[in-house]
């Protein structure tokens, strides 16, 4: 069965610094999603990555996908406090199942 691993699980970073969250998955998939979850809240869609080499950017966040390495990254540039949240990657198992397998999540805390 498809496994999705994220690291790190926890990330405490200073404002203004850069960092990368990694998402590895175990079997072939061409759809990868990044979501954000604030404490006690639901999931907010950030990015959908549809093909090998896909790169998407929104503000201080940039996501990329390497389907051959089965790796996606979420890069944070010049972090600000508002980015503090838990970030999940999720991989689509197949078109017929529409099942998303979620990573463990990375809890990000940005401090001054």
């Amino acid at each position, binding site marked *: 069965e498809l496994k999705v691993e994220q690291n790190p699980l926890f990330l405490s970073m200073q404002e203004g610094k850069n960092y990368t969250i990694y998402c590895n998955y175990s079997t072939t998939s061409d759809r990868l999603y990044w979501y954000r979850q604030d404490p006690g809240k639901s999931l907010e869609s950030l990015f959908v990555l549809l093909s090998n080499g896909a790169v998407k950017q929104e503000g201080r966040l940039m996501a990329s996908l390497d389907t051959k390495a089965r790796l996606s990254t979420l890069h944070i540039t010049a972090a600000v406090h508002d980015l503090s949240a838990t970030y999940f990657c999720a991989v689509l198992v197949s078109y017929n199942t*529409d*099942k*998303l397998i979620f990573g463990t999540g990375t809890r990000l805390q940005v401090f001054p």
Partner: protein
Amino acid sequence: EAGVTQSPTHLIKTRGQQATLRCSPISGHTSVYWYQQALGLGLQFLLWYDEGEERNRGNFPPRFSGRQFPNYSSELNVNALELEDSALYLCASSGAGTGSETQYFGPGTRLLVL
């Protein structure tokens, strides 16, 4: 445009009871998905409904069931509640059941089983 809505926001039940959770998808979306987010277990896929039919289910016992109505809203039923069913239940909807659309999540129902 209204997002995915879920009710109730919180639900407290005792062991052995039944719980019913409701979800209304984004207007125009035909697929509804249910996920369980339990402490220590992460987010796990429960059920997928599309056009009124159950298309796929995750690794959950049969006491987790549901249905989708003609207006595409959905209900999740959990029978014979157990303590470990305590979790946040998230509903998501998408525009097509082909894997090509993003799943948009509702605010969730927090179920507590005592």
